[in-house]
């Protein structure tokens, strides 16, 4: 962590009357509420087909596909990026708000918030790229990540469920809390099923699968593909940095991933500034920096060897002269 961030007093100490920990955190809340509004609109139109010009089974399929794709896309960002920031730096000054808003945040992405935090903070950040980091793709015999598509389809919820079961039932304190959180999640997650089970499968379960398999899993894959564990010899080769301005603007600066792993407590809105300060270290340390975002990286890594070479290319502004 940078010295200024370490020595700076906590926002709650500076302004005890504040609800939010950081002034820009209301963007996170707004983003989540717009996502919930999108789900509500989709449900309402599904239940009122004449308004959505759904005249038969084919037009219903078209509506469900269009809605599920965009809902899955935004849910993947809402949990994988937006809630992710909250798991590192809670957005409210009140613990109660943090806990309950978190629960009502991740259920629209198919996750109990406690499970997501456990996977990301306790497993991924603490054991990055080691054998204990089961959130990342498995390694092949030559040390590379497993096939991109295999990871996308096998990880959520299958592998995750097995690992979570083993980890969270191992200790009594974790087990009790996990069952409580799972019960709260199931109560919230089942709400669309009360209205229409078919609608819930089409516009709730399907978007959650898209969010996890294609947005969150692909994000995890591209952020660490071709990377090595952090050592003194290679201090910034554990993550790829995505410096596309449009990507970082619309994705809460998640592209500055190396900086985020090294300084997870730095607020997401301050990552561009931190990136500028650490830019020379990234160049000298030969960090992998690419000029695009996660989506194009996923497109490249999902292709054949020729296309995958495009991902390995370095941004021309970050080439080392050493």
């Amino acid at each position, binding site marked *: 962590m940078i010295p200024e961030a370490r020595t700076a007093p906590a926002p709650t100490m500076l302004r005890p009357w504040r609800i939010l920990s950081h002034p820009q955190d209301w963007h996170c809340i707004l983003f989540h509420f717009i996502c919930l509004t999108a789900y509500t609109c989709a449900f309402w139109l599904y239940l009122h087909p004449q308004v959505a010009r759904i005249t038969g089974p084919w037009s219903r399929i078209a509506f469900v596909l*269009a809605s599920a794709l965009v809902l899955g896309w935004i849910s993947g960002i809402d949990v994988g990026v937006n809630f992710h920031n909250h798991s590192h730096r809670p957005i409210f000054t009140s613990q109660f708000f943090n806990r309950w808003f978190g629960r009502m945040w991740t259920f629209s992405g198919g996750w109990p918030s406690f499970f997501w935090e456990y996977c990301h903070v306790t497993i991924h950040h603490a054991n990055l790229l080691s054998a204990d980091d089961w959130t990342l793709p498995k390694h092949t015999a030559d040390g590379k990540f497993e096939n991109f598509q295999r990871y996308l389809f096998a990880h959520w919820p299958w592998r995750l469920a097995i690992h979570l079961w083993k980890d969270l039932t191992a200790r009594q304190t974790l087990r009790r809390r996990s069952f409580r959180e799972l019960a709260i999640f199931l109560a919230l997650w089942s709400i669309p099923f009360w209205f229409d089970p078919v609608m819930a499968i089409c516009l709730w379960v399907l978007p959650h699968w898209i969010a996890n398999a294609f947005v969150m899993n692909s994000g995890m894959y591209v952020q660490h593909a071709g990377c090595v564990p952090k050592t003194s010899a290679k201090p910034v080769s554990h993550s790829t940095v995505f410096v596309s301005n449009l990507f970082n603007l619309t994705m809460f600066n998640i592209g500055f991933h190396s900086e985020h792993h090294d300084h997870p407590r730095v607020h997401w809105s301050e990552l561009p500034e931190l990136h500028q300060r650490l830019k020379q270290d990234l160049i000298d340390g030969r960090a992998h920096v690419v000029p695009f975002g996660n989506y194009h990286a996923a497109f490249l890594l999902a292709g054949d060897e020729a296309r995958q070479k495009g991902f390995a290319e370095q941004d021309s502004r970050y080439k080392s002269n050493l």
Partner: protein
Amino acid sequence: MLHSTRRRKRTERRFQKTPGTEHPSLLQVPPQPSLSGNELNMRSRARVFVSRITLVLARSFFPLFAIAIILGAALWGPWVSLGVTVIAIAAALRLL
């Protein structure tokens, strides 16, 4: 004995009255009202407001786009929504 009162020389007003009013016009404020350079005016406030709104809209771009696609089905039908979604995903995979 009454002294004749000397008529005070009329000082130049800093701001000229606008015709038909007793008050100086705001339009006649000089280009730099204070030397500090920290004064607030409507233009700088508007600029801050517009930049903040732009930032919020940009950060919420994807969920707003999703709402447009979903509600848009009521305007142009589900097939157009599906087409626009496919094009948007293809564009994101190529450009973002």
